[in-house]
């Protein structure tokens, strides 16, 4: 089936089997391997991307369901030149080690802070509760997201 959607601002048209999930479509068809597959059943959050503003586990979404959608993956969170404030905060707070869960953490946190730039630590923990990390113990991740809030508040103001 032919499907049209946007990824990180660029329009894409792909020919896919109806059963192909969006994570495999991004990784295998579009070669965007920054989106990771951990559990493939919606438990780990590694495959989270932003679909029309909402954080979505794309191992549970078919590629054909993306018709007309606008998708942001980890590759679209920053320009080539600079890290985003959220990515910078992750680096500063040592909020990653092996880096496998990081794309899902970043996209989940980006979707949250875009909607709720004043989210408190409890809200951040709740939003990230579906993303598993086996390296950090989560505390540095929450600290990084807390610090990144300032940039999202500024972005709101014209």
């Amino acid at each position: 089936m032919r499907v049209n959607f946007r990824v990180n601002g660029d329009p894409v048209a792909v020919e896919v089997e109806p059963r192909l999930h969006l994570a495999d479509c991004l990784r295998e068809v579009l070669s965007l391997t920054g989106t990771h597959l951990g559990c493939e059943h919606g438990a780990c959050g590694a495959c989270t991307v932003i679909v029309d503003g909402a954080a979505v586990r794309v191992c549970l979404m078919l590629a054909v369901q993306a018709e007309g959608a606008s998708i942001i993956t980890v590759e679209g969170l920053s320009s080539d030149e600079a890290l985003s404030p959220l990515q910078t905060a992750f680096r500063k707070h040592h909020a990653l080690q092996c880096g496998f869960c990081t794309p899902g953490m970043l996209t989940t946190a980006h979707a949250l802070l875009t909607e709720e730039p004043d989210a408190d630590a409890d809200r951040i923990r709740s939003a990230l509760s579906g993303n598993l990390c086996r390296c950090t113990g989560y505390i540095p991740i929450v600290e990084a997201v807390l610090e990144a809030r300032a940039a999202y508040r500024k972005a709101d103001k014209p």
Partner: protein
Amino acid sequence: MIGTNRYIGSPVERIEDLRFLRGRGRFVGDLKREGMLHAAILRSPIAHGRVTFVDASAALAITGVRAVITAKDIGVVPRIPLRLLPLPGTERFLQPVIAADRVRYVGEPIAVVLGDSPALAEDGIGAIALDLEELPPVPDRHASERDETLLFEEAGTNAAMVFTGVKGDADAAFRDACSAPSTY
């Protein structure tokens, strides 16, 4: 005079973070090679049973399924060695790489399918005809101890080894002690 070291005692930014944070890390699952095949594994759905029938012909008939490997296909290969404490006796209980006539745990490999994509390899798994004759499981040490069901019949027992540990003379130590608590 003690020299200073700019790495110890101060935060150091990791250079690998730059690629991980941008989604440019390269993990094993990201690798692609020309002609690369994907494997899927048919695993035992039961804890203990006899493998009475495996037929892969329908799987091999699927376009994009390249091979099905069973115990029969790999012939005689060594059993999986123990990495830790390979003590005398344990060799009788080593597990096969692929189950031949017996499965001994849920998830034990019975066949490996190679296909052009993960989905095609999984299609192959679904097309394998498999018959298992269920045997009583040995779910805990109590059942294991009774030896009513043997997981490795040729060993004649489920007990891999018997440990006896002795250090010193505890009775004499209590007898000769100046005082000993009456209850402990």
